[in-house]
């Protein structure tokens, strides 16, 4: 599979703002610990007067899958939506502290959120394809970012659909409506749509919670493949899913980060009693 950030030759003004992540890795001395993709220090967030996140300190490594787990209402989706600033669309949402992506302050009021969202793709809980053709769904992002040539678009659409393991199922009906696909196919289409603009990071907010077990398995397999190219943060309610797909896991409870670390350690040998109770299914 080709590198997605190389998919977008005509997007130079946008892509040159940061070097592609894989190049950074090649030039780095092997002994130094990889710098975090996302780092937060003393991060707090509110909806109106209701504080939903309290003093979070967390580092997310690049090119890994990081799972956010915790019971409903613990703030994990809110945190996810700060990383691409989707909370800007919610009146009364605000945050304090430090939240940065490769050293860029994500809470900066003057940040170019359009460019940020190109670099940080998002997949939602419920598949939300646009009521357009399959082709136009995948081409939507590239067109927003001024890729208009038909051959470039065709190439991008094919590569994105291949990357999301959907190409073989839809290659003969790219012009039919995306709403005719099954739920699992729609969700993979949404992943293709996010991948098509060459992001360095993918945020997934319970991407399988509206899907049947077979579609869930195909999405999980896809996530494991995409890890090679993207930093992925996945919010999930499903403990097994977190243990299957994520390299690192962070457990949240009532707006606080209780414990984080490599997934196998967090699940088999948690330091915290609450984490142990949650991952063993005693509450949540």
């Amino acid at each position, binding site marked *: 599979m080709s590198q997605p950030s190389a998919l977008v030759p005509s997007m130079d003004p946008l892509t040159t703002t940061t070097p592609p992540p894989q190049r950074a890795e090649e030039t780095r001395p092997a002994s130094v610990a990889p710098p975090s993709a996302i780092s937060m220090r003393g991060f707090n967030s509110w909806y109106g007067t209701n504080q939903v996140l309290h003093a979070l300190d967390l580092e997310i490594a690049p090119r890994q899958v990081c799972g956010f787990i915790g019971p409903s209402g613990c703030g994990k989706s809110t945190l996810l939506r700060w990383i691409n600033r989707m909370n800007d*669309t919610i009146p009364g949402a605000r945050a304090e502290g430090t939240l940065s992506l490769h050293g860029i302050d994500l809470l900066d009021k003057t940040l170019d959120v359009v460019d940020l969202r190109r670099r940080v793709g*998002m997949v939602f809980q419920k598949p939300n394809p646009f009521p*357009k053709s399959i082709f136009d769904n995948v081409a939507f992002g590239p067109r927003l970012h001024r890729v208009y040539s038909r051959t470039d678009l065709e190439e991008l659409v094919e590569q994105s659909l291949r990357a999301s393991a959907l190409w073989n199922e839809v290659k003969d009906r790219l012009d039919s409506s995306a709403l005719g696909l099954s739920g699992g196919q729609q969700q993979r289409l949404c992943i293709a749509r996010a991948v098509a603009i060459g992001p360095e990071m993918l945020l997934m907010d319970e991407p399988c919670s509206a899907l049947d077990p077979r579609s869930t398995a195909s999405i999980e397999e896809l996530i494991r493949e995409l890890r090679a190219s993207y930093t992925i943060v996945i919010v999930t309610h499903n403990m097994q899913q977190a243990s299957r797909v994520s390299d690192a896991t962070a457990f949240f409870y009532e707006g606080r980060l209780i414990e984080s670390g490599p997934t196998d350690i967090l699940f088999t040998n948690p330091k915290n009693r609450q984490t142990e109770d949650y991952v063993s299914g005693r509450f949540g």
Partner: protein
Amino acid sequence: MIAVAARNAADIAERGTPCSLRMRAWFEGSIKALLWSLTCFTVVTTAAIISVLAYETYGFFTIQNHPEVSVWSFFVGTEWSPLLGAQPMFGVLPLVAGTLLVTTIAGIVALPIGLMTAVYLSEYAPARRRTVLKAVLEILAGVPTVVYGFFALTFITPYLLQPLSNSFGAYNAMSAGIAVGIMILPIVCSLCEDALRAVPQSLRDGAYALGSTKFDVSAKVVVPAGLSGVIAAFLLALTRAIGETMIVALAAGGLAQLTANPTAQVQTMTAYMVQIFLGDAPAAGIEYKSSYAVAFTLFLITFFLTWIGALVLRRYREEYE
């Protein structure tokens, strides 16, 4: 707590049902009969009106001693002069053209402005401002149409149109069209806004997450997704424009001409009917009967548009189910 609840429930059980089974059956039966008869009243009234329309139209086409009247010459005739000259002419096309001219102008005024206002209200306006603006629009929708007629005649024509060009007469299709456009604006706006607000938030989120600006979201996702609702809104508003009477009777003039010139005076189908029924045409006369044929034509046109609108609307409801 549980003990109290049990005692209350026991009280209800002891009291029994409030009236006998037969009383309840009688009551339910009479309610059902009342509702059924009211439904029949609505349907029968509509059917009766359409039958009278059809009957009188038939009477017009089979009238004695008027060889110039035929279905063919009515629908393709290009001259409408029922009251003037020795030889009255009954070709409905000038009236249809007058109606279409006024409706087209109204559509050009109302549809783009209405859609853009709806986009503003549904996508851009903060919640408080939207509430206030919607209330203002509802006031606009409540203005009696005769007022728009005055407005066209005493303001739009002398102060807006005639300074632009002296070819505008005191009565002209343009001012009537603009006034009708203003009249249907709240309908376009409110129905379009409903259609746009029905587009699921998840689609907007999906578009924002790909790096869309608010304009991208509105123009490339929300409006296309709500397009069938928008088209249905347009058709329903145009139906209102076609049937509008007072504005055109006051401001468009009374001369039936087959023209597309907006500075000329035109007579619409509705304005002709007003002229006949307010004038002294005898009830058995051919002019009187001709207005039924015109009314029937108007009914067919609006029925067709309403039907198309309903079809489009149904398709758009299915899209998200």
